[in-house]
């Protein structure tokens, strides 16, 4: 878009949306929310960036390489946490049998492995949403139509 008001307001609003998404991911074991909804919020903020500033500018911020790392990293971290439980005790993906510190219920640092799983899920869902949007839009680009303008 070439409107100056939309561009300046988007530049001001996007950090707050991402901060709210990170808050919802990290507080997944205290308040309603969790990994899926927080990841959707972060992905939506990046889709807003693509819609306002055009696809070539957004691909510099979130290229295909970064999407590959985020997608694979999310699953590898999840399975890695499960394998830690398998090596310490005999069970895959346990919380209290694998020695994760439980802490006081209601504090931020509690719940054992639950906040770690929520972070992995959040990164993965955000990367999925942005990759799907960029893949559906990309076919419009050639020399005659240079991106969303």
């Amino acid at each position: 878009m070439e409107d100056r008001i939309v561009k300046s307001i988007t530049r001001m609003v996007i950090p707050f949306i991402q901060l709210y998404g990170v808050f919802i991911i990290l507080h997944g074991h205290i308040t309603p929310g969790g990994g899926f909804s927080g990841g959707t919020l972060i992905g939506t903020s990046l889709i807003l960036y693509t819609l306002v500033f055009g696809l070539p500018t957004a691909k510099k911020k979130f290229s295909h390489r970064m999407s590959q790392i985020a997608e694979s990293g999310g699953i590898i971290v999840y399975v890695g946490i499960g394998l830690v439980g398998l090596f310490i005790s005999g069970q895959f993906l346990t919380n209290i049998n694998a020695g994760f510190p439980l802490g006081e219920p209601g504090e931020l640092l509690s719940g054992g492995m639950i906040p770690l799983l929520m972070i992995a899920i959040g990164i993965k869902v955000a990367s999925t949403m942005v990759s799907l949007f960029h893949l559906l839009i990309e076919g419009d680009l050639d020399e005659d139509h240079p991106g969303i303008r």
Partner: protein
Amino acid sequence: MKKHLLNVLFLILFGILVYSIIEMPTMQTVDAPSYNEVTEYYIENAVNETGSVNFISAILADYRGFDTLGETIVLFTSVIAVASVLRTVKKKEEEEA
């Protein structure tokens, strides 16, 4: 003629489904059939065994964490499926050029 027949068919279907809803057992109370021992076990023992105050997060990530692993695999597969359909245009143009 066909459109009117289709509308009447959908209204009959709506009537049958509403009748089956009226015949359901008592819902939306504590006596509902879905509020059984599994739910009461989760509500009583979630804080002691998991350390999280949110019951839904405790069920999602601890008691049924394997299903959430399946979820992430489904998301991963969907991105790969869409990329395999939509990313072959540039390769064809490079091969033709």
